[in-house]
């Protein structure tokens, strides 16, 4: 078998094992939280009688282990089940939210990844001169400010004062792509500002590292322009660490943006998961948790495969 296929198969099976472990852990931790779904739903209006009725209906009287294996059995057959709190089909509601999250993450990535890499290359090209310092200063400033603060400041100036963007990033199926992009303009801007510095700095550091090598000197002696040397000779050899950082940031864009979702009232997965945890809606928590874990594991695997493909020494092991 080709070593790369072997690696992919190995990684996939390991990933699936990891997913099981993650689901068991999420289930255990959610169970360990104080209170249960019935109490969370009824809140201050709970009476012992209505609590008992609701627990019965939600199936909370079954032992925890058998509920977990019921869920596991369901997911094996592709059935995510339904929420125990509002009875909606999980696949459907998660699907919508996941679509929204991926939509936002996709456009944030489309803007931020090329921009970060380009800025990184630019910083190397003008190393230690004013463009390099300016780029670093700006990106490091924006990464240091909490994202909710950037969000509020942008909403205040751009949406409330200037009336350019929209304060609420509400998207739904009846909107055209243009309307949707207009709605998510501000959150995309915030997310870009948040993830830019990390990727840009890594690109800069990785390429500078390579720039010390002898073959770069050779390329320069051949008379190639500085930018050509960076783009054609230095960048491909620096790809591996860059891809790793890019993937980490992509994963963040999918699983870590709950604060931005709250600020812009964006109907994504983060808020959905938080609501489910608050209401102890275990099947929904599990579904979201497993999806998040799968995205994380998947993106990391992709990063590894790309770095192997980019590196001849790893591509052709002896």
């Amino acid at each position, binding site marked *: 078998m080709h070593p790369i296929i072997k690696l992919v198969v190995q990684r996939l099976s390991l990933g699936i094992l990891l997913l099981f472990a993650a689901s068991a852990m999420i289930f255990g931790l959610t169970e360990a*939280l*104080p*209170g*249960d779904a*019935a*109490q*969370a*739903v*009824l*809140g*201050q*209006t*709970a*009476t*012992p*009688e*209505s*609590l008992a*009725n*609701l627990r019965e*209906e939600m199936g909370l009287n079954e032992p925890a282990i058998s509920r977990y294996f019921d869920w596991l059995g369901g997911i094996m057959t592709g059935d995510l089940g339904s*929420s125990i*709190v*509002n*009875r*909606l089909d999980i696949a459907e*509601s998660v699907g*919508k*939210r996941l679509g929204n999250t991926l939509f936002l993450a996709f456009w944030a990535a489309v803007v931020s990844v090329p921009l970060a890499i380009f800025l990184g290359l630019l910083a190397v090209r003008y190393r230690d001169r004013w463009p390099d310092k300016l780029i670093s200063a700006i990106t490091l400033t924006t990464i240091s400010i909490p994202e909710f603060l950037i969000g*509020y400041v942008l*909403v*205040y100036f751009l*949406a*409330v004062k200037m*009336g350019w963007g*929209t*304060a*609420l990033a*509400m998207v*739904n199926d009846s909107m055209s792509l243009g309307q949707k992009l207009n709605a998510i303009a501000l959150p995309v801007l915030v997310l870009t500002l948040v993830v830019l510095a990390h990727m840009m700095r890594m690109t800069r550091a990785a390429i500078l590292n390579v720039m010390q090598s002898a073959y770069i000197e050779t390329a320069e002696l051949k008379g190639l322009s500085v930018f050509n040397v960076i783009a054609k000779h230095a960048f491909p050899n620096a790809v591996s660490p860059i891809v790793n950082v890019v993937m980490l940031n992509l994963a963040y864009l999918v699983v870590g943006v709950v604060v931005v979702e*709250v*600020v*812009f*009232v964006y*109907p994504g997965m983060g*808020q*959905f998961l938080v*609501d*489910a*945890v*608050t*209401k102890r*809606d275990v099947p*929904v928590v599990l579904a979201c948790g497993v999806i998040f874990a799968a995205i994380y594991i998947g993106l990391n695997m992709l990063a590894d495969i790309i770095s192997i493909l980019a590196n001849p020494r790893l591509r052709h092991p002896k």
Partner: protein
Amino acid sequence: MTNELDYLKRRAGQGKLSRREFLGKTSALGVSAAAAGTMFATAVHAEGPKKGGDFKIGSVGGESTNSLDPAAAASQVPYHNNYQWGDTLVGVDGSGAVTNILAESIESSADAKTWMFNIRKDVEFHNGKTLTAEDVVKTMERHSNEDSKSGALGIMKGIESMKAEGDVFSVTLKDANADLPYLMADYHLMIQPNGGMDAPDTGVGTGPYKMEVNEPGVRHVYSKFDGYWGSDAHFDSVEIIAINDSTARTAALQSGQVHAVNRVEPKVAGLLDRAPNINVMSTAGPGHYVFIMHADTAPFDNNELRLALKHAINREEMVDKILRGYGSVGNDMPINAAYPLFDTGIEQRAFDLAKAAEHYKASGHDGSPIILRVADGAFPGAVDAAALFQQTAAAAGIPLEIKREPNDGYWSEVWNKQPFCASYWGGRPVQDQMYSTAYLSTADWNDTRFKNAEFDALLIQARAELDGDKRKALYSQMGTMVRDEGGLICPMFNDFVEGVSTSVAGWNGNPNGDLMGGQMTRQCWFA
């Protein structure tokens, strides 16, 4: 002056002037506030409601776990949802009087044990079915039978039997209750076809707006129902958007993406009111922020200690700093002037450190720290309020120790379990309901463990008393008992503080709930 006044009236009629602006401007012309108030109302109503428009509300309290089952409503978004698609049998208006909704008239037997509601004829559900008294019976059964998991189960307990005869829905109670119609106005009790026994969460009712989009935790869209029986409800469509973050809510209102928001934070209300296209509306209500002690648990089983703590809290300071003036001081009882039959003559308890120290000494408390549990989720500003309380108590020599609890799980693990904690009550439309819910010895939610046989007897007696003056005297006596012996420290009653776009006319505050007690989409219109 007349020209000027006519101009202002016209502007008010078009909704371009808020009530407050109108009063301010007319008083500059020498018109008294009372006269100006009447003028404003006439001007606004003379112009008359206009039909049409897509109305959007940004509301706190929407989660992805929400359901359209009215029995499960426990926060603001489901509350407003209920009032879009559903109708209750009766309602309670801004002045605290019962109004007929799906009931055309109400009669009771002389002993207030049997109540008859004549059901409105020719009312159509969204699914085309015609409303019958049988639907009403089924609805009430679903909320009160032994399988019920309704938030209204607590108030339905006193019912012995219900039946439908022709167009009449009649209820027989175990004990007399002069306030039964108020119980039927509860926001969970939306009348559904066959009582929602078959499909509780489809949002099919007799209300003015028909459910179009149901995305829990995101938005709920409704369109005007053509077959609606009433003459109110002027919008073409209504959208309720869940915006839990308060800054996002105000930004959405300011940028014009929504027309009304609830729960404006008191600290930004003043600023928001200065925005040119927004009015901040403040409505006094029965909701109150409290610190509750279990009167049957040491050390709070000692009334001297309870009185010491009650005297050691600075109510004015709390209203000033926690509510920023959007509220009023409490008097250690759950009732205020928002309730009918409230006795304004009950003496207001004052902040008195000398008395607090005296009672503390008399209590013989051993000086160990008294633990007060709080979380931000108990009420907005609860942690700050507890810190203020701690300082004033320390000045009286009472050692309070604040234990901060997580918001998550606060209502299941701390409230009604720990002997001393912060909490809030939304209040109820009538005194009987408030006392029966939380102060009767046997009440499930007796979160102060106030158990007093004499009080219970008075409560039952007042329930059956049909004479208003006598009832008022009984309630006054009960209020004083809770105030002097209960475990409730009630420093403040909070107002509903809401932001409304100036494009909306017909505002009429209702103390029973936020955004006009859920009636905004029915009574307001775009000017």
